């Protein structure tokens, strides 16, 4: 890896500058404020970009043009929408449980923020390198459904309640598959730290090195995580045609924007984890052979941040492709899919991976 692309030089430099200026406690507080602000800006920007991308991609899948009036190719459309949402009046419905109703959007929004905290996007570009990063993310991402459930319950509206309940039933079941698929890969990586997982792929991505079980795990993870983010074809928590807008029917203005944004940032988180586990995160494309040294070296010249975001974009595109191709499933079909297909397959795949890891039959 080329050292010039390492962000830790930049962050380390800033840290030294600040340490020269003030006491360690003040340095810590300042850094926390800076990182928090950057994270909020990053999430807001990614939200705008992803919503626009979703709308454009959806339009092309349906042979439409998509937004094309505000700014060149409609690039400012989501910004305009966002400003509109900001200026709207915040209404709390009369029969809603005020406290929970107002709390729900924040819980929903908290999840992607916490998860983004441990994800490395480029060498050195990681807020916190936990040694149990994978575990932390799996734990935190199950909090999102809490927000949805609270929102659906507190709205005191039948559509919201049904949406929230459906979401709970679905996410609780699919969480198993997501975690098992992740665990399958952890057998290979032998570490729970996200940066070490990436480092273990310096001689080739796991989807290539781990062959068939890794491929199956990737497909299972992709399916289950699409369901976990409540995206189509598993979007029956919102199901416009049946439930108006599902759990966020009663939300408006910026509170609605929180729900909306969290869906997209969750997609980013899920895609980042898929990238890290299967495609080596920011790790350039390397081949695990003797003769490929020159090739590997050329790949190193593309910065890690390009690799990282490129692969995330690819996974997000796959998820959008699913969403705009497949019809929405019914609740019983969704639960059937999880308990009768994904979960058994995951368990078998888990064993298979363990056997392969034991026999050393991987590259």
């Amino acid at each position: 890896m080329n050292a010039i692309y390492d962000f830790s030089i930049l962050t380390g430099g800033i840290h030294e500058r600040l340490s020269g200026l003030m006491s360690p406690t003040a340095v810590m507080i300042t850094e926390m404020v800076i990182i928090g602000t950057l994270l909020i800006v990053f999430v807001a920007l990614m939200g705008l970009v992803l919503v626009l991308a979703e709308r454009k991609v959806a339009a092309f899948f349906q042979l439409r043009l998509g937004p094309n009036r505000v700014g060149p190719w409609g690039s400012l459309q989501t910004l305009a929408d966002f400003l509109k949402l900001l200026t709207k009046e915040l209404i709390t419905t009369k029969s809603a449980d005020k406290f929970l109703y107002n709390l729900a959007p924040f819980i929903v929004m908290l999840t992607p923020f916490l998860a983004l905290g441990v994800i490395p996007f480029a060498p050195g570009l990681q807020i916190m390198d936990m040694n149990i990063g994978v575990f932390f993310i799996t734990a935190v991402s199950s909090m999102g459904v809490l927000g949805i459930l609270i929102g659906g319950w507190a709205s005191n509206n039948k559509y919201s309640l049904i949406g929230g309940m459906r979401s709970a039933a679905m996410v609780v079941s699919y969480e198993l598959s997501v975690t098992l698929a992740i665990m399958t890969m952890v057998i290979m990586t032998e570490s729970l730290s996200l940066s070490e997982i990436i480092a273990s792929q310096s001689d080739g991505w796991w989807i290539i090195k781990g062959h068939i079980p890794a491929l199956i795990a990737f497909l299972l993870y992709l399916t289950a995580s699409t369901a976990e983010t409540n995206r189509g074809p598993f979007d029956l928590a919102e199901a416009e045609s049946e439930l108006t807008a599902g759990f966020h029917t009663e939300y408006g203005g910026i509170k609605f924007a929180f729900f909306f944004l969290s869906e997209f940032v969750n997609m980013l988180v899920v895609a980042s984890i898929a990238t890290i586990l299967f495609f080596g995160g920011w790790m350039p494309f390397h081949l695990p052979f003797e003769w490929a040294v020159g090739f590997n070296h050329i790949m190193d010249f593309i910065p890690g941040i390009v690799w990282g975001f490129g692969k995330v974009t690819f996974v997000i595109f796959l998820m959008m492709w699913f969403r705009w191709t497949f019809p929405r499933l019914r609740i019983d079909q969704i639960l059937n899919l999880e308990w009768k297909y994904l979960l058994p397959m995951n368990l078998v795949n888990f064993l298979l991976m363990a056997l392969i890891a034991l026999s050393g039959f991987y590259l």
Partner: protein
Amino acid sequence: MSTIIAYFKGIGQGLNTLWTGMKVTGYYFFHARKEIITMQYPDNRDTLKIPERFRGRVVMLHDQNNEHACNGCTMCEMACPNGSIKIITDKILNPETGKAVRIIDKHIYHFSMCTLCNLCVQACPSNALAMDNSYENSVYDRSELTFVLNQPGSKIRDNVKD
């Protein structure tokens, strides 16, 4: 045993159909540039092509001699589900036979009530009616939406049967 085979067959078929769907949408996505069907209407007004079967509004067909094929049989009036058509007939004497013949006086058409269902066009036994391709049909007053479909001074074509 057969259930086990059915289980795996189901998985295979499911994946296969999903992939078929993804191929279709994927083709559209990567060929969006030439396949896009959106018309950016006010911008492309000069080059806009309206499809032939587009239903703009009901018209009565007249030939170059200002003759139409309507004999006032009121079939269209009866066919219309919302009563958008009112036929006012007249009687004239046929000079050859000396009998009274029914002719159309006014074929009144209320565009404001019409749902463009095409039933009147299909009901007409002498094919006197048709749909035209007009658009931009909005006006400022409701009264402007009532048309008399037979043109002033027009008369029925000779070869039309009673």
